């Protein structure tokens, strides 16, 4: 905007171009307050600029060592760990889906119509929804020993409340008309489920479960850090000895695997929808 046009516009409609000074003062005050709070937090966490600089220098060196990536002659072992990671994700998701299904039915408003019970049950699920799989894995490894078993249970535990919530929401969203139709044709309760409910619910639930499988493959990749098997263990080991060419190899391989699974799962989900 040219200076002249701006002055003209300001003369005609000052409010359109400039907020009243009280609001501007208030906004500036809030902005400064927010910035001060952030700086205060940074100071409280002892985030020193010096540490940042040396850290970046080190990080640069690590990244330099990452090229060219190298398998270190252990590609068989790494591929096996990758397969184990997928196995953990698949088994964990399957268990989560099987456990979440009855919980989802209980959590659906259309099944359990008592509002108090519904509220209590949903809140109970909500409590555990935020706990990340790694937090479960840490204690499960300590309880069950090193190995993928703890990882499978951790993934399942982290997913069950989330999947149950999604399942009960999709059950609530099913159209009652086909169900009534099948029932009025004289079908048995089982047949009502099979021909009235399942065609609506199964594709949605399967698609949600596939989505969780994608997420679990990402989560399973890190559970090895606490000893729960899979590729994370191999990664952690190599980061500890600063073998960054092998780290880069594993990360690249893993990212390719994640992308493959995502593409496959997305195409399956598109077919279901």
């Amino acid at each position, binding site marked *: *905007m*040219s200076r002249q*046009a701006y002055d003209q516009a300001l003369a005609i409609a000052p409010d359109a171009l400039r907020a009243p000074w009280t609001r501007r003062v208030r906004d500036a005050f809030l902005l400064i307050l927010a910035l001060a709070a*952030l700086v205060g*937090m*940074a100071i*409280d*966490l*002892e*985030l*020193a600029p010096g*540490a*940042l600089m040396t*850290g*970046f220098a*080190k*990080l640069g060196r*690590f990244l330099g060592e990452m090229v060219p990536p190298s398998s270190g002659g252990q590609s068989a072992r790494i591929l096996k760990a990758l*397969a*184990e990671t*997928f*196995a953990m994700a*698949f*088994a964990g998701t*399957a268990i989560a889906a099987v456990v979440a299904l009855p919980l989802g039915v209980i959590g659906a408003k259309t099944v359990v119509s008592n509002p108090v019970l519904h509220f209590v049950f949903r809140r109970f699920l*909500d*409590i*555990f929804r*935020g*706990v*990340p799989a*790694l*937090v479960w894995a*840490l*204690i*499960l490894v*300590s*309880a*069950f*020993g090193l*190995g*993928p*078993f703890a*990882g*499978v*249970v951790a993934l399942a535990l982290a997913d069950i409340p989330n999947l149950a919530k999604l399942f009960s929401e999709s059950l609530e969203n099913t159209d009652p008309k086909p169900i009534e139709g099948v029932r009025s044709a004289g079908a048995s309760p089982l047949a009502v489920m099979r021909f009235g409910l399942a065609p609506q619910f199964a594709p949605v639930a399967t698609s949600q479960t596939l989505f969780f499988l994608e997420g679990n493959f990402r989560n399973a*990749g*890190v559970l090895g*850090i*606490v000893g729960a*098997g899979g590729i*994370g263990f191999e*990664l*952690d080991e190599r*980061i*500890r000895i600063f073998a960054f060419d092998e*780290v880069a190899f594993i*990360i690249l391989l893993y*990212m390719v695997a994640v*992308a493959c699974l995502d593409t496959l799962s997305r195409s399956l989900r598109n077919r279901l929808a």
Partner: protein
Amino acid sequence: MNTAVEIFEQERRRMLVRQRTQAAVGLAIFTVLLLVSFQRSQFFGSDIGGDPLGRMADFLQRMNPGLKPELLLEDRQTRGSLHSWFYALPTWLHAAWQTVEMAILATALGSILALGASFLTAQNLMPFAPVRFVVRRILEAIRTLPDLIMALILVAAFGVGPLAGVLTLTISTLGGLGKLFAEINEEIDPRQLEALQAAGAGPLKKIRYGVMPQVLPNYASYALIRLEGNLAGAAALGIVGAGGIGIELQRAITYTEFDTYLAILLIIIAMIFVIDLFSEAVRHRLIGLEKA
């Protein structure tokens, strides 16, 4: 008439056969995958004793703090009191607060970076295609890399402590929000941009007066959702040494204090719950403002 019915029946039989074959093949693939997965992940492996359900029960037993109703309010030395269960509450609360600080700082920094990135990747604001392409690929790469792997490398570079955690979450927030912000940018009303263009505004003024007023409420809403996610993330990051309450979890495990673990877990759950409530309240206000 008869032939039409016959053709229909034939067609239907063929369809049923095809559907059933598809279902059978799908089921077969699924079963094989499931069996191989359980085998590979040693779910029923005998080398850790078999009996997965029995082990679960034993584990729950060990998490039980053994509270005694008549001793709840006794001092720290009495087994069975709340104080002896939550014996280091001030330390844990401080660690929890650090986790909150990490999440807030990382969300703020990540959002600012994402803001910049979103203008570089939005089709309607960045006319230069190669820049869009490169920035988009970088954001995608960040999203594919799990946070904790990034955290491991950053802890190796920046040392144990919150700095590595804040950086990890900042980068991952940049990846996640950068994409969402760019999508918001591409959906804005182009007429306001055209009006500013016609008035001779430069690119920065176009962003300030044409884009910002339209997108800011949506941005804030997404950033708050991200804050909730970052808080859970920050709690987990401590386990690999990136600061916050995760370090306390790790310590409880080192001393195999399962009941302490449960206590800290409850603090984490409460912390996530409080931030969720706060963020939801602010988001609802923002949506209300947007409608007004």
